């Protein structure tokens, strides 16, 4: 039997406004929980992007002064190649660094504009034979004092610090998000239950005259999904216009260089937003489906 769209739309709209305070409570809970959930995911993707520099066994990077002389550079390169602890050392020149910089900061065109290849440090990306942090650190530090070297950055340090930061923020966000999602689910369930209670006489008549269970249930389930979808829309707005710019700001912060490369791409944002919408639909559908199956029987 076909369920008429205008019937469902009319019923759903009137239900949403009849319980406006409860509806708002559910929607706001969904907004907060999904924003936290999405932020945690974005942070995690930021961490992964930031750690990208250290793929392929690279354990530390020797950043050189932009003004380094060819002799100094050649001397460092020779030392690296002759050192038995070094498996592989790759030179990244200023142009390549600039390309990488552009890729990492694609979201901040103003920043990219202010930077030219000449002011960026060229570097050696070093993959040592061992992964033992103590050995790697000792090895890296022998290069730190050489003339023309700007800074030696260790992967374990960066990765560890970024991950620590993520663990501090992200895991707590996720935990809070999960708790709030459960709260949202229960609020949706109760909103739908109240909506059904408000319409119990109509439901009674519908059953008497032989409306199918699904005909009675569908408007309520759609009502639940619409509530979470409204919440998801607001959460997506927050993520796009508040959370993402905040992460970009972090990555541009020169004082906290560990966040360098801590960026989220447009692709990351879109995927996360889609996931947020999917979770919203799921929460709305589960909450209202449980409500109608528990409180609506033939």
């Amino acid at each position, binding site marked *: 039997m076909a369920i*008429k769209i205008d*019937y469902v739309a009319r019923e759903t709209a009137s239900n949403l406004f009849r319980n406006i305070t409860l509806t708002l409570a559910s929607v706001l809970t969904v907004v907060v929980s999904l924003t936290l959930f999405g932020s945690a995911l974005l942070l995690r993707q930021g961490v992964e992007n930031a750690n990208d520099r250290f793929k392929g066994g690279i354990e530390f990077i020797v950043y050189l002064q932009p003004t380094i002389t060819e002799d100094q550079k050649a001397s460092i390169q020779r030392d690296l190649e002759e050192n038995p602890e070094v498996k592989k050392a790759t030179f990244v020149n200023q142009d390549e660094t600039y390309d990488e910089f552009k890729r990492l900061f694609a979201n901040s065109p103003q920043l990219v504009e202010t930077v030219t290849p000449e002011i960026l440090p060229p570097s050696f990306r070093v993959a040592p034979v061992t992964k033992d942090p103590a050995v790697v650190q000792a090895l890296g530090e022998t290069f730190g004092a050489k003339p023309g070297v700007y800074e030696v950055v260790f992967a374990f340090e960066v990765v560890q610090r970024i991950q620590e930061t993520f663990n501090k923020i992200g895991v707590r966000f996720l935990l809070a998000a999960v708790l709030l999602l459960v709260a949202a689910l229960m609020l949706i369930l109760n909103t739908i239950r109240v909506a059904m209670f408000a319409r119990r*006489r*109509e439901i009674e*008549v519908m059953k*008497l*005259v*032989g*409306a199918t*269970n699904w005909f009675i249930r569908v408007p309520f389930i759609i009502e639940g999904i619409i509530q979470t979808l409204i919440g998801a829309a607001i959460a997506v707005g927050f993520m796009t216009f508040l959370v993402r710019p905040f992460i970009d700001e972090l990555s541009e912060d020169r004082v906290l260089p560990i966040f360098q490369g801590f960026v989220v791409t447009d692709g990351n944002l879109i995927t996360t937003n889609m996931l947020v919408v999917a979770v919203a639909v799921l929460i709305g559908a589960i909450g209202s489906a449980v409500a109608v199956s528990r409180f609506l029987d033939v």
Partner: protein
Amino acid sequence: MIKLENVSKIYKGDVVALSDASLEVNRGEFVFLVGASGSGKSTFLRLVNREEHPEKGKIYVAGKDIGALPSWKVPHLRRNIGSVFQDFKLLTNKTVYENVAFALEVIGRPRHVVKTQVPAILDLVGLGKKMGNFPNELSGGEQQRVSIARAFVNRPLILLADEPTGNLDPATSVGIMRLLDRINRTGTTVLMATHDRSIVDTMRRRVIELDRGSIIRDQSRGVYE
């Protein structure tokens, strides 16, 4: 049309609502169910509608064992059964027209069917001029006519009436009975539970008397006592 085979219904706490009841109602019959409060009249009607399940026995409606009906088919059973109650069960926020139309809309009848059937049935029950009124603007008798219109608009095979005149004065009740009689004459089987002695005695139809869940009398062209 309706057949009960050794049907027993026991509510929680050993309240026997119906015990080992067997009977058959033919197509087009008009049957009064009489008996004291709690004798099982309402349970009888609720069993036919499958709002209740019997503990024992089988119930056939239009030849089908409704106990074997899967629950998703129950709505289709109910489309063949109209129900009328003492308290009308009208939706107060809907007009007379909307109340009757609702019954057709929620079973998915197309709009043009609703637009033609609803005014026709409201004319039949004598409320053609009050389609735009709300239930609380009508008298009790008029409200019961609306509820009968709603029960009958889908042309069910069976009409179940649970004390339809219980809230109405005698003169109004006579009008309601004329209406039910007219519906019965179209071939609809009518089962009516009642306490109204004068109605039963005037109509002289089949009377089934229940006492504590047992059928103690089944009389064609019967009287109340």
